[in-house]
Structure formats: structure tokens, C-alpha cells
């Protein structure tokens, strides 16, 4: 009883704190608007926005520092459902959701909705299959569960491999995103911006682990959702007299459809058909399956959904709630907070498309709107094949095209997807302060996701690899193993990180020097520390090392890593989903079954990715795959997720399945192998089966606690 009273008081106090915070944030926006009105330059407004929000996150991070193991790994298991939902929302919505999603919907029309569906529906699976049961189990990390259920460190090690391989590419993309947003809005040099973002991330996550990340993510969610909704709500109110864009964009879609017919009739656009679909052809906004074949459309939905339920950085958020019941409620709140952004994204796409189709396409060249020149200067909008930096540049570019009618045609216009969200404030004619707000929101989205991912990787390394696997070893063996791991890490850094960095020295040397410097500084501490201290110090060092490695990777602008983010979902699905679900729902699942299942599913997924992406000819020659040829060079076209040809003509791999959907091959194989091998091996012990029963009942202590006590 005393505990419920205390938690009610805690809940109330949280409400007061975050209420005040939201009020202060709105006051801050108004204050900046007044500054702008008084003539403060845009650049200063942008800097104030970014540095003040970063400072707030850092203050929360420092205030919630902790020296307790359970606070560090699972925020002391006392985050209420509602707030955990917000934190998960921020954790989930990355720079790609905030900036890129609306742009994809703009380009892909209906087909883009596969991403909207895929990135929301997965939470149903989290709740009904996995999340609450892992909470009852009482793990610190996902590999913890694997090791416990599937008897030992081999399963743990496999789970760590799956975790690191799907989280590292993802976190690199987030840090890349912070650099992109900061450089675009603040005019910072990209590489500097990456490291500024890194400092922001570390201030939040390093001192307080999960506890600090949770409370900053809530603050970041509030910033990002206000930033996402404000421009579009104002735009909707001005255009349709109703400040609910999610309802009014139906009219915009009707207008777009009418305008599409008109453009085709006037000869200003080429129609995209199944037979021929040249670049820049008109793909009607509401017509399905022009970009993805139905198989790939539904494949993306399935892989993103099942991937959601398998991604460790999301699952571990549900370890932090006080009860199993709250874990379930918290999944519902998570999806609610995510839904607020995702069901607004199609409105951004529709309003932007209407603006482009009415005020740019079909207009005499001298008449186009000036908002696009800012983006043209940055190379993000092109008209007639040249950056649309000035009116003169556009006129000159179009003149040089033979037979150009002097009116902008659809095929003349190319837009980078990032522009859709970023330019909406300007299209709506809003003051710069709103653009600054959007930048702060995008930054919050990128930072919060990066925090969660970094923590997931660092926790797996410190808790699972160091504490559970290395610590129990004999001193000699341990020292040798640690030595081998360090050499392997440095070698990987040397091979993976590229590009000339600061002061003309390659990024890889900076990264390796930083790595060694940190180890050297930390060594005397570790010698003196007691067990708990050592555990937490090691967790922090690893966090720092992973952060530096991913920032150095991001700074070298690896084009492939960014394209690989979608792969993270498929990899998580193939590697984790069968073992997690069967571990809870099927008592007969055995250690051998799980290990074979994880290896089979994960390997098939990786194999399909690597062959279709890097060695298409090998696939054609030896594995019965198909591949489209580039009509000019005759080279194989590697599978990329943004198709350049009509859906019907895409040929790739097996069954024309995009490699982003490799989870669709890996997960079923994982299930089959796991079931077959389990049935061939002796059933798990009575004791293990009883513990699975325990996981299924919310009442009582967590299983891990009972086991260790």
C-alpha cells in the first residue's frame, strides 16, 4: 500500500515536471519569435534553438546520473506506462521518420504507406508475443533472456552478434542524421556537426545509463512532436480553415488527383505504366503497386512489423516498467505517441505535392515560387537537370533543353526527399522561428534514437560480454581473450572507417587514437575499483568507445551503411524473432533448436543481402537468382530499395524479392529449423519448463531475481 502511494506521488511529480517543461519550451519558442520580430538574424535563432535544447537534455542527463546497477540498466524498473510510452516513441522515431518519411510518401504515393504500416503495426506483436513476458523474466538485456532460456553463453553470444549487427548500422545513420540537420540549419561543417551531436548523445547517456536516457527521451519526444505538428497544423488552418491536417488532407489528395489528370492532358507529364516508366514519369498518388510489386509491398510491411518486435533497443524499453501490467499498457501508449507523428506524415506529403503540382509544375518558368531557391542552392531541388539556385539558373538550364515549352514539366523537376518536411514552414509562409523549431525537432528525433541504440549495444557488451562471459573466466584466459577482442576491434576500425578527417589525418587514426587514449585513462581506475564500480565504469567506457566508433564511421559518410538501415529490421527479424517467440510460447523449444534456428535464419538473411547487393552475378550463376541488367552498360543492377523501373519489370534475387525483405526468407527458415531440431533433441528439463510457466504468470517476483537469490 505504501508503495502505491509513493508511486502515485512520483507520478504526480513527473506530471508537474514535464508540464512545466512543456510550458517553458513553448515560452521559449515565443521568446525567440519576439527576438526574430525585433530583427535578430536567422542564424542566431537557429543556434539558440539547438544549443538550448541540447543544454536541457544534458542537464537532465547529468541530474539523473547513477551509481546503481539496476538504475543504470533498467532505470530501477519504475518508469510509469504513460511516460515509458513517450520515451519509446522518441526511441523509435529516428531522423528518418522525422525528416525522411514524408518525403518517401511524396515520391512513392500509396506505396510509401507500406513504411507507415510497417513501423506501427509491429507493436501489436511486441505486446501479444514478447514484451510483457520479457518484463516478467526480469532481464537486463535481450541476450540475457536467450542465455537463460537456451542454456548458456553460446546462445548469449549469438544474440549479442544479432544485436550489434542490427544496431550499429542504425546508430551510425542516426549520428549521420544529426550531422546533416545541424549542418543544414546551422551552416556548421558536417564533420564538426557530427561530433557536436555526439557530445549531446554522450552527455545524456553516459552518466545515467537507461535512467538518464529515459528521462531525456521524454523531453525529446515533447520537442519533436511539437516541432512536427506545428507547421502542418498552421498550414491546414490557413488553407482549409480547420487546424486538423489529418482530416483536411483528403481534400488535398482529391485536388492532386484532379491535377494529375490535367498535367497528363496538357502534355506536361509522361504517364507511368507497367510497360514503360521513364524517370520523372507521373505516378498517380493514390494508385498502388507502381513502385513496389505487391509481394515487396506486403514484404516491407511484414519485415518492418516483425522486425519491430525483434529489435533489442525497443524491447529493452519494456524492461523499465514497474509491473507486467504496465508493460502492456506502455506498449499501447508507445504506439499512440508514435501514431501522432505517423498519421500526420501523409498530410505533409499531400500538402507539399499539391504545392509543387500547382505552383511549380505547369507554370511559366519566370513564375515559379522563390521558396525553392534556398533548397536549390544546397542542391536539393533541381529543375531541368541543374540546381535551382536562382531564377536565372533555372531559365538558363531549361533553355538548353531542345524543344522545352518554357513551362516547367513534371520530368524537369527533381526534389530530395528531405526537403518535404524542412521546407513546409517556408511554403506556408511562416517565420524562421518555425524552421528553427523543425530543426530542433529533427535533432531531438535523431539524438533520442541514437541514445537508445548506443545504450543497447554498450549494455550488451558490458553486461553480456564482460560481466557474464569474461568476468567468470580465469584471470589468464580473461586477459588473453580481452587482448584478442581489443586487437579485433582496432583491426575492424582500421578496415571499416575511411575518409580524410580533421587536420588532414584519416578518421580511422583519430578513432583508434581515441580508443587507446580512453583505455589508457580508464586502466588505473579499474585497478582500484570495487566490483559494482568496476561494472559501471566498464559500461561507460564501452558506451564511449561504441559512440566514437559510430561517429567516426558516420563522419566518413558511408553511403552503404545508410542504405542498410532498413536491413536492420530484417536482420533482427531473422535472428531474434523465432527464438524469442518460441522461447516463451513453446516449452519444448530446446537449446540446440534455438542455436541452429538463429544461425540458419540469420545466415540466410545475410547471405541474400550480400549476394544481391554485392555479388549479383554470383547469384545468377550459382544460386538460381535473377538480376536486371543496366541497358547501357550491361552490368547487373544491384537491388536498391528505391526502384528506378516500374514495379512489374523489377527482377532481382529469388521471386523478385527486394533484399530489404530478406527477413521473409530468414524468419520462416529459422522457425522450421528450430522446431525440427528441437523435436529431434530431448525436451528441456522439468525445471526449465516450470520457469517458462513462471514467465507466463505476471504475479510474483521476476524469474531472474528468484534464480539468483
Amino acid at each position: 500500500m505504501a508503495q502505491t502511494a509513493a508511486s502515485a506521488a512520483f507520478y504526480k511529480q513527473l506530471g508537474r515536471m514535464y508540464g512545466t517543461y512543456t510550458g517553458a519550451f513553448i515560452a521559449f519558442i515565443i521568446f525567440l519569435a519576439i527576438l526574430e520580430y525585433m530583427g535578430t538574424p536567422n542564424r542566431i535563432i537557429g543556434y539558440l534553438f539547438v544549443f538550448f535544447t541540447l543544454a536541457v537534455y544534458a542537464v537532465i542527463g547529468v541530474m539523473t546520473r547513477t551509481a546503481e546497477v539496476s538504475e543504470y540498466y533498467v532505470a530501477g524498473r519504475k518508469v510509469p506506462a504513460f511516460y515509458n510510452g513517450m520515451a519509446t516513441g522518441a526511441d523509435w522515431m529516428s531522423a528518418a521518420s522525422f525528416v525522411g518519411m514524408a518525403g518517401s510518401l511524396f515520391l512513392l504515393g500509396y506505396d510509401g504507406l507500406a513504411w507507415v504500416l510497417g513501423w506501427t503495426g509491429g507493436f501489436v506483436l511486441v505486446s501479444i508475443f514478447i514484451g510483457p513476458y520479457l518484463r516478467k523474466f526480469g532481464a537486463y538485456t535481450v541476450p540475457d533472456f536467450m542465455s537463460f532460456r537456451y542454456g548458456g553463453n553460446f546462445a548469449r553470444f549469438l544474440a549479442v552478434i544479432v544485436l550489434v549487427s542490427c544496431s550499429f548500422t542504425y546508430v551510425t545513420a542516426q549520428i549521420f542524421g544529426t550531422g546533416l540537420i545541424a549542418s543544414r540549419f546551422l551552416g556548421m561543417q558536417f564533420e564538426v556537426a557530427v561530433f557536436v551531436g555526439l557530445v549531446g548523445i554522450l552527455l545524456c547517456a553516459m552518466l545515467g545509463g537507461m535512467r538518464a536516457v529515459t528521462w531525456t527521451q521524454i523531453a525529446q519526444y515533447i520537442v519533436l512532436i511539437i516541432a512536427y505538428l506545428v507547421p502542418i497544423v498552421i498550414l491546414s488552418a490557413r488553407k482549409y480553415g480547420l487546424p486538423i491536417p489529418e482530416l483536411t488532407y483528403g481534400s488535398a489528395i482529391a485536388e492532386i488527383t484532379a491535377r494529375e489528370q490535367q498535367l497528363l492532358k496538357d502534355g506536361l507529364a509522361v504517364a507511368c505504366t507497367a510497360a514503360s516508366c521513364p524517370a520523372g514519369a507521373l505516378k498517380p498518388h493514390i494508385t498502388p503497386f507502381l513502385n513496389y510489386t505487391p509481394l515487396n509491398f506486403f514484404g516491407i510491411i511484414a519485415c518492418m512489423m516483425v522486425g519491430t518486435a525483434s529489435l533489442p533497443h525497443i524491447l529493452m524499453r519494456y524492461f523499465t516498467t514497474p509491473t507486467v501490467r504496465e508493460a502492456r499498457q506502455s506498449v499501447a501508449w508507445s504506439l499512440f505517441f508514435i501514431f501522432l507523428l505517423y498519421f500526420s506524415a501523409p498530410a505533409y506529403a499531400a500538402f507539399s505535392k499539391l504545392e509543387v503540382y500547382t505552383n511549380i509544375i505547369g507554370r511559366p518558368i519566370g513564375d515559379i515560387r522563390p521558396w525553392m531557391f534556398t533548397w536549390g542552392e544546397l542542391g536539393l531541388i533541381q529543375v531541368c537537370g541543374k540546381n535551382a539556385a536562382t531564377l536565372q539558373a533555372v531559365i538558363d538550364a531549361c533553355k538548353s533543353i531542345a524543344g522545352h515549352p518554357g513551362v516547367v514539366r513534371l520530368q524537369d523537376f527533381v526534389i530530395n526527399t528531405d526537403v518535404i518536411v524542412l521546407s513546409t514552414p517556408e511554403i506556408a509562409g511562416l517565420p524562421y522561428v518555425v524552421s528553427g523549431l523543425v530543426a530542433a525537432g529533427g535533432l531531438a528525433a535523431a539524438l533520442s534514437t541514437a541514445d537508445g541504440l548506443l545504450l543497447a549495444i554498450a549494455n550488451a557488451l558490458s553486461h553480456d560480454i564482460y560481466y557474464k562471459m569474461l568476468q567468470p573466466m580465469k584471470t589468464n584466459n580473461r586477459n588473453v581473450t580481452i587482448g584478442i577482442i581489443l586487437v579485433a576491434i582496432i583491426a575492424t576500425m582500421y578496415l571499416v572507417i575511411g575518409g580524410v578527417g580533421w587536420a588532414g589525418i584519416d578518421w580511422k587514426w583519430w578513432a583508434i587514437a581515441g580508443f587507446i587514449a580512453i583505455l589508457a585513462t580508464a586502466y588505473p581506475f579499474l585497478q582500484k575499483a570495487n566490483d559494482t564500480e568496476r561494472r559501471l565504469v566498464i559500461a561507460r567506457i564501452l558506451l564511449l568507445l561504441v559512440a566514437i566508433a559510430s561517429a567516426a564511421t558516420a563522419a566518413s559518410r558511408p553511403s552503404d551503411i545508410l542504405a542498410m538501415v532498413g536491413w536492420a529490421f530484417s536482420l533482427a527479424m531473422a535472428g531474434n524473432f523465432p527464438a524469442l517467440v518460441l522461447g516463451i510460447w513453446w516449452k519444448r523449444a530446446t537449446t540446440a533448436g534455438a542455436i541452429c534456428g538463429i544461425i540458419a535464419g540469420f545466415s540466410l538473411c545475410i547471405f541474400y543481402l550480400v549476394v544481391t547487393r554485392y555479388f549479383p552475378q554470383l547469384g545468377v550463376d550459382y544460386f538460381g537468382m535473377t538480376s536486371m541488367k543496366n541497358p547501357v552498360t550491361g552490368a547487373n543492377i544491384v537491388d536498391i530499395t528505391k526502384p528506378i523501373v516500374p514495379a512489374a519489370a523489377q527482377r532481382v534475387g529469388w521471386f523478385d524479392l527486394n533484399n530489404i525483405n530478406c527477413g521473409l526468407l530468414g524468419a520462416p527458415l529459422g522457425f522450421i529449423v528450430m522446431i525440427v531440431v528441437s523435436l529431434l533433441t530431448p525436451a528441456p528439463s522439468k525445471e526449465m519448463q516450470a520457469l517458462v510457466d513462471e514467465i507466463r504468470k505476471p504475479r510474483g517476483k521476476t524469474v531472474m531475481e528468484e534464480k539468483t537469490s
Partner: protein
Amino acid sequence: MAPADTKANQEAHWAATTRLMFIHLGVWIFFGYIIHMFVNQLNAITIPVLKFPLGFYMAAQGSLIVFVVMLFMFARQQDKIDRDHGYAED
């Protein structure tokens, strides 16, 4: 009064839990996949006043709303099952 923690009670609890899981799984499959297979037919219908083509609307908003609502319902229904069998937390 909640029943005792017998083997029979435990099995009944798990059977009810499994049934609920399959119901939600079915709804999830319907709104996640099946309804979108009929997008062309649904697009022929326009929602009055809002002017959305129905097929587009279901993928952009309809299914999402269903997912949110069903998660809140699931939390409540599963909690009821836990309570009825005496396995809920205090």
C-alpha cells in the same frame, strides 16, 4: 475469490491467454495485410466530406487507429484474464 495456483488453473489461464493472442493476431493480419489487398476496390469508394479514397485512407490512418485501439483493449483484456485466474500483480 481467485482460484488456487493448481495445474488446472494454470492451464486454463494459459488457454485463455492463447485464445486472446490468436484473436488479436487475426485482427492484426486482417488490418495489416488482408484489407490492403483490396485497395483498388476500396479506392473506388470515397469517404464523404473528407474526400479520402477509402483504400488509401485505410493504409494511411484506418489500420493505424485500429492498432492503437486494439493495444489498449488487449492490455485490459489480458489483465482481466490474469485477475480471474489469480495471477495478476497486486
